[in-house]
């Protein structure tokens, strides 16, 4: 089950010019690749969430650069490119009373749609999603896409 958990990099950033450029240059120097990226903004601040190929290294690089950063456990789901794909996931989790804290999607080079989810019960979510035949990706998949 552990291998289906993806380590997402989350960081606190003030809403001001130059913050993203600073992150990007730290990653470029360390050769870290960003696979997925989103910003949840709330007025004066934002929370940046990223899936990267080497999360432990990314955490260290950002921490040493003085950022407030954490690694958060999330799920990566390979979406079926058919109508109702998202609804099925939401239904399965909803039936088990598992709450989605947040979600965002991205498309890979191989034209697959991937959904990143943070839930309040990650192990329960893995069980019910796999039970419903939904494909979860792991860190090895993240490195290859």
């Amino acid at each position, binding site marked *: 089950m552990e291998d289906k958990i993806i380590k*997402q990099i*989350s*960081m*606190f*950033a*003030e809403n001001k010019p130059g913050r993203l450029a600073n992150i990007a240059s730290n990653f470029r120097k360390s050769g870290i690749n960003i696979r997925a990226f989103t910003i*949840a903004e*709330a007025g*004066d*601040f934002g*929370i940046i*969430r990223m899936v990267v190929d080497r999360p432990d290294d990314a955490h260290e690089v950002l921490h040493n650069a*003085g*950022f*407030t*950063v*954490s690694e*958060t456990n999330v799920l990566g789901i390979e979406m079926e490119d058919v109508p109702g794909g998202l609804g099925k996931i939401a239904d399965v989790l909803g039936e088990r009373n598992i709450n989605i*804290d*947040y979600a965002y999607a991205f498309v890979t080079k191989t034209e697959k749609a991937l959904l990143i989810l*943070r839930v309040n019960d990650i192990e329960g979510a893995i069980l019910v999603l796999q039970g419903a035949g939904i494909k979860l990706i792991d860190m090895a998949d993240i490195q290859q896409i």
Partner: protein
Amino acid sequence: MKEYWNPWIERMPVSELEKIQEKKLIDLVNYVYRHSDFYKKRFDEAGVKPGDIKSLEDLQKLPFTYKRDLRDTYPTGMFCVPNEQLVRFHVSSGTTGKPTVVGYTQNDIDVWTTSLARAMTSIGVGRGDIVQVGYGYGLFTGGLGAHYGAEEVGATVLPVSSGNTERQIELMQDLGSTVIACTPSYFLFMNEVANTTGISIKGETQLRVGIFGAEPWTEEMRRRIEEFTGIKAYDIYGTSELSGPLFTECMYQDGIHIWADQFLIEVIDPVTGEQLSDGERGELVITTLAKEALPLIRYRIGDITVINRGECKCGRTHPRIMRVLGRVDDMLIIRGINVFPGQIESVLMKIPQVGEHFMIVVDRINELDVMKVQIEMTDEAFSDKVNDIMALESKVSSSLKHVLNIAVKVELVEKGSLPRSMGKAKRVIDNRNL
């Protein structure tokens, strides 16, 4: 280890101390009237003659002196001795106006040193200690004051001055400093720098005592410093006009002992100038009983405090002032309500998720005062859910509102983004043009 520097004077019955004060006060008013045109004029204007002062009760007949008097008579117009009798000058930073100059005779330096020797002994600092002085040396009185006091009690002084933080930590480790003297905000910064280089002040230095002052700080900040670094943190008090840092708390950390044979203190209502009873909060007024070059009569030092004349558990009979809440000058008036930065610090330090650095920003928007408090996000408090962060902001905001009675906007900023100070911390940005 000595318990008292001068047990006879420090444990003298209050009635005998008051006799000393009375005699010295009477001598003082005669001395300043004869030796200073400034005081002669000030007394004459108030219709007071030296002969009117016969007892301590007559103190109230004397006119006040103010910081602005020192500025108006810049540089040496209030001095009572000719320059050739001076052994030293110090000059205040002038952050709140024109700089002020203070001068010392040899006896003034000796009295200052004795005051600190008593204070340092009362917190168990003496022979065998290595006192790292991180206050600035030079025109500021903090560095040299702590230096002379520490030498007097037989400690070894490490005169690092302020700044050069990595070096401070390296020397603290290599030489085994047991005492640090600097501003509390600078010590927090030192601790932060030590942590980022993987050094624990608690586990990897010999430090056991901190002597912190030159800026107001709170009981809650003391608890944090003691918890983080494993030292005992003591408050030190004094200003350049009085000579420099002079007084500290004793081991019991229950108020700062003011040596009654050298200084006469009262607390007044800052608006009416009336004396308040012991235990009432008001503005501290100090009369110097032993200074020669620049004696001050009923000097309005501007700090808000409470006097406690009860005997201390340490056995000292001299009165104590309780922790200085803030300066009259630092008080902010927000929509008609008085707010001291210390009240804000006190609220913030009770909330574990809030770090040690904060900034108060006041603006006037559409004729309305708006106060914002910026606090730094910490690694421990960070959650990647927006709701959690908003909840923290509103928790801090409602705690502040509960104490201050005004709405405060709380803004979380990135760690390390607020200014760090190596001297007196700046905690307020007032953008109103008042």
